[in-house]
């Protein structure tokens, strides 16, 4: 039995989420192979070949994989599945986009966003915005799985996998990439940052987020937000931490002016240390915080920036 992991990358570097997916894949038993589909992605393939416990890297190069559509990835992965018993990808917007297509083509039920591997056919996944954990056993011959990267250890380097260049599926496809508008920031990416500082509705305006920016710069932290702050138009949606946004699990999570709605907690409660700053001492966020400070954020934040 061999297991295929789909690498997440931007053609330049391998995304750390892939290291967590390899750990999940090892739980299924058998050889772990990694597929790198990209354009000019040799460095990514080389990095994947060094991952601890990876036996083989399949490298598919094509112009269309610079910004691959779900259609193109599915057309590449589905035929490969003749050789594999399971395929895993990170539950990122890329994995969520194309993996169910692969599952449907193989006539299997995908197991989404798993947080644990109990047995090669049995997995744990959150449902109801993380308010319940469901253990499911799959009766399908082949498994199609997306993995919540924050709940698995990341494998290190130390392997030297063999490299296999494979052909890319040819179109024509009915969808094409047009453009992208990525948020520009010198700060670390939310899902991989060691420290995250997030603001909620208590921030009162988008301008006030500069109070968080100052602290983030001092700590090398990423800046996030609650859904309430996004809905209020303070910051764009890619800041959103929560069940409907990003799931993060940094070393330190600082929640500022966030009440602690269930949907927000679902996105950050696996953080190692949680700090809450809120003027309402009854706010539910304090029930999950390791350190709570009941204070007005407009005085606490400048003081914090000063002290750091």
């Amino acid at each position, binding site marked *: 039995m061999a297991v295929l992991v789909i690498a997440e990358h931007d053609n330049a570097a391998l995304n750390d989420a892939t290291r967590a997916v390899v750990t999940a894949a090892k739980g299924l038993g058998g050889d772990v192979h990694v597929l790198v589909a990209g354009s000019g992605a040799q460095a990514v393939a080389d990095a994947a070949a060094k991952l601890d416990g990876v036996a083989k890297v399949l490298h598919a190069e094509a112009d269309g994989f610079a910004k691959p559509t779900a259609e193109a990835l599915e057309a590449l992965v589905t035929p490969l599945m003749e050789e594999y018993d399971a395929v895993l990808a990170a539950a990122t917007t890329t994995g969520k986009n194309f993996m169910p297509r692969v599952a449907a083509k193989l006539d299997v039920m995908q197991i989404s966003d798993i947080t644990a591997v109990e047995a090669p056919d049995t997995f744990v996944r959150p449902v109801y915005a993380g308010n319940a954990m469901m253990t499911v056993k799959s009766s399908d011959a082949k498994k199609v799985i997306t993995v919540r990267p924050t709940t698995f250890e990341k494998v290190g380097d130390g392997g030297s996998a063999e490299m296999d260049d494979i052909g890319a599926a040819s179109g024509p496809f009915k*969808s094409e990439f047009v453009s992208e*508008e990525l948020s520009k920031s010198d700060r670390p990416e939310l899902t991989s940052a060691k420290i995250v500082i997030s603001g909620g509705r208590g921030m009162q305006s988008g301008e006030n987020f500069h109070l968080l920016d100052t602290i983030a710069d001092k700590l090398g932290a990423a800046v996030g937000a609650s859904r309430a702050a996004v809905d209020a138009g303070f910051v764009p949606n890619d800041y959103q931490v929560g069940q409907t946004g990003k799931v993060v699990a940094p070393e330190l999570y600082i929640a500022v002016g966030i009440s602690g709605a269930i949907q927000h907690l679902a996105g950050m409660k696996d953080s190692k240390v949680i700090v809450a700053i809120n003027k309402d001492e009854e706010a539910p966020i304090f029930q999950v915080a390791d350190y709570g400070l009941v204070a007005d954020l407009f005085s606490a934040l400048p003081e914090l920036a000063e002290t750091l």
Partner: protein
Amino acid sequence: MKILVPVKRVVDYNVKVRVKPDQTGVDLANVKMSMNPFCEIAVEEAIRLKEKGVATEIIAVSVGPAQAQETIRTALAMGADRGILVQTDDTVEPLAVAKVLKAIVGEENPDIVLLGKQAIDDDSNQTGQMLAALLDWPQGTFASEVAIADGKANVTREVDGGLQTVALQLPAVITTDLRLNEPRYASLPNIMKAKRKPIDTKAPADYGVDTAPRLEVLKVTEPPKREAGIKVESVAELVAKLKDEAGVI
């Protein structure tokens, strides 16, 4: 142009669900049920496309128990034209729902299937993508903007690093994200009117779809609880604790 909008009846998003003590699932007795919020956004977007003159007919479909008819009525009250209820009391997984929808697409020939990116009960995020694959259609998932022109849909998608735009040849599947629109409330006159709009009732077997689950639920448990920590009195104390006790800064 015809638009098919699949909708799902789920636990209302304001309800804090409780896991049953026997670990067989969550307690749904006497719990408020509503249309899945992402499905509401899909219905709203379809209606806006009709108001713009792009769409001519909107068909709301639901696969679920008899009460899912209420969810279809909600879509009709918002502005959908007619409904199809594929009635079953069984748990129907996304793969089976996608197969039912594929059969309905075969009968109705819509140009767009517009649906929510995920249901807030099972959080699978699969049905739209599976349907697109089964139909060999292109897909635009997690849409924050949809523009239809010249037999194409330009869909702006919420992706991890920001926004991405893809062009899809119609027919296509589009799934909605939160910022696409703000769904309207149905007015009382429209709720009354919706009662007279037709709903066809079918069964999965009418479409030749086997809905037997592929995933067996072994147990449903409470998530691990986090214990509350301590309250600090000042910013200085907080920084000291983070440095010396937690060692995270």
